[in-house]
């Protein structure tokens, strides 16, 4: 178990400001936050690159706050791979093993095993510059994994990749995590990573953790305005997607949402509150989704109001105050929820 308490570190413009978090053994823990929230410093402090100004880091009951990075058993993978350009792919992966007193035959065996797990077994003799982004990231992950770290830190490992590669590597990360059981702390600013990978999520803002929970909890009950705004996807529900003729019907239990996607099976959908249209009565339009319901909450927030309509599932909509007045929306009165198929964002669970 990795336990972080009151961790603080100031470094140039970035700062950690009292980070508390606990990661269970074997957990896939995702830290979500915008650029500049201090996520990379958090990882580098966990890895021991920086010594914290205050707070403690505790791994398996051992205080490692001041332990040298090489003795922590924590692996680190950066967004920009950081493969050593003067070594081959194989030498990169074997780099950590070579630091110990392992015998060369054992090293080469472990390197091949790990490379095979990552699907880069055929690239070991290549120089790093000739690899694609996805291959480089696999090599970087293999280099950290081959040491069987207690904790694997991934700093935006998918951000530098194109969409297709990212999608594939994301699936592989999940498979690798399942196969090795390694505890993973993964930093990202893509909320898609959360639904695909995370057991639990921590949302980071201005150097502190503002919310921790399962992906569902964080998205459905954002603890702060910031979390809601950052995720921007308050209406997140999970269900089963069935695709026919390019059109998907996603069964969310209470209701079935229509959209256009190729993703089938277990999915989550998100609809931004500003894309939800409210009306007093159901109306006919080109929008594919209309559900009658009841207004359960109207909350004013500056020029806008957040209106919650229970239409089988609670939908949050953001309206101007004038619209609320014009429609004469009142808590407890009926109202309909309408949104276009294209407003439904689908991600794999």
């Amino acid at each position: 178990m990795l336990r972080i308490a009151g961790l603080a570190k100031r470094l140039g413009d970035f700062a950690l400001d009292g980070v508390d978090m606990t990661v269970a053994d074997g957990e896939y823990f995702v830290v979500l936050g915008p650029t500049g929230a201090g996520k990379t410093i958090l990882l580098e402090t966990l890895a021991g690159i920086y010594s914290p100004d205050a707070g403690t880091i505790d791994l398996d009951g051992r205080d490692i706050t001041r332990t040298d990075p090489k003795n922590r058993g924590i692996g680190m993978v950066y967004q920009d791979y950081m493969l050593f350009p003067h070594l081959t792919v194989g030498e990169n992966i074997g780099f950590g093993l070579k630091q110990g007193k392992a015998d060369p035959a054992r090293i080469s065996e472990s390197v091949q095993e790990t490379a095979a797990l990552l699907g880069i077994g055929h690239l070991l003799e290549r120089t790093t510059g000739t690899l694609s982004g996805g291959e480089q990231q696999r090599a970087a992950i293999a280099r950290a994994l081959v040491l069987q770290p207690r904790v694997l830190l991934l700093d935006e490992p998918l951000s530098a990749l194109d969409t297709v590669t990212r999608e594939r590597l994301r699936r592989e990360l999940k498979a690798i995590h399942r196969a090795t059981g390694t505890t993973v702390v993964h930093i990202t600013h893509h909320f898609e990573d959360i639904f695909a990978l995370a057991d639990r999520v921590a949302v980071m803002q201005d150097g502190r953790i503002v919310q921790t929970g399962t992906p569902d909890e964080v998205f459905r009950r954002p603890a702060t305005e910031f979390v809601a705004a950052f995720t921007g996807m308050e209406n997140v529900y999970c269900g089963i997607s069935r695709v026919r003729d390019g059109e998907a019907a996603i069964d969310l239990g209470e209701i079935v949402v229509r959209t256009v996607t190729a993703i089938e099976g277990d999915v989550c959908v998100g609809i931004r509150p500003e894309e939800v249209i409210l009306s007093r009565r159901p109306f006919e339009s080109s929008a594919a989704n209309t559900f009658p319901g009841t207004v359960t909450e109207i909350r004013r927030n500056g020029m806008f109001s957040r209106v919650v309509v229970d239409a089988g599932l609670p939908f949050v909509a953001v309206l101007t105050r004038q619209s609320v007045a014009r429609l004469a929306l009142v808590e407890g009165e009926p109202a309909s929820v309408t949104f276009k198929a294209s407003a439904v964002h689908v991600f794999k669970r």
Partner: protein
Amino acid sequence: MFPRRAALPRPTPFKAFFLAVSFALIAYMLVVIGGLVTYPPLPALIESLLSPEILFAVELSLVTSAVSTAFCVVAAVPVAYSLARFSFPGRGIANTIFNIPLALPPLVAGVALLIFYGPSTFGKMLSEWGLDVIYTPLGIIVAQFFVNLPYMVRVARSGFETINPRYEHVARTLGCTEWGAFRQVTLPLAKSGLIAGLVITWSKSIGEFGAVLMLAGATRMKTETLPIALFLNMSTGDLDLAVAASVILIAISVVSLAVFERYTGGRGVF
């Protein structure tokens, strides 16, 4: 680097003027240097090149510059790395102090060294141990080291600064000590920058005159490096030997400049 526009197909008066100035100066430099090399008749030049005095000067220059360059490299690597990587109180001042010899006339540096190694307590102490710096070949090395260390520091620092520190961070998480990460990752990645620095430092120490003159003196066949040989033979009117020393210095400059450009990829360090 921004793309450059072609000047030739349709030269405007502006382009023509600027290019003309450039080519005139190139011609001027080539004529001046070429004139020196071709001044003595070839047999006389060869004879001078093979004279005992010039051979001595070549050997002394090669040995002293090799030793002083080696010391420069060994000393400059930790300094350059510290300036590139660490934040510490007085970093800015340290940077300036290491640059002082760049701006200081070598003659002045030489006088300062002369006083430090001569009448000062330290100088007397060294002399009691049998280490005589003044007017000896050892003085040549000391003078070259002092004047050229900043060049090595500058080039090496610029080399270290281009290396992403995350390489070292990763190496540390992979089980390296700080020393290990430096040796196995940073040094190999900084290699071309260090070689470039080494070449420019070596070439500058071969050509060092003012500081060497002050500290080691100009004694024929004792502290006579190539620039000193040039100076001595000029002052005695022995032009052929002076030109021979110059030709060797020109050849060394051209070769080392070519090597330097190759290892820095033409990116300016100074």
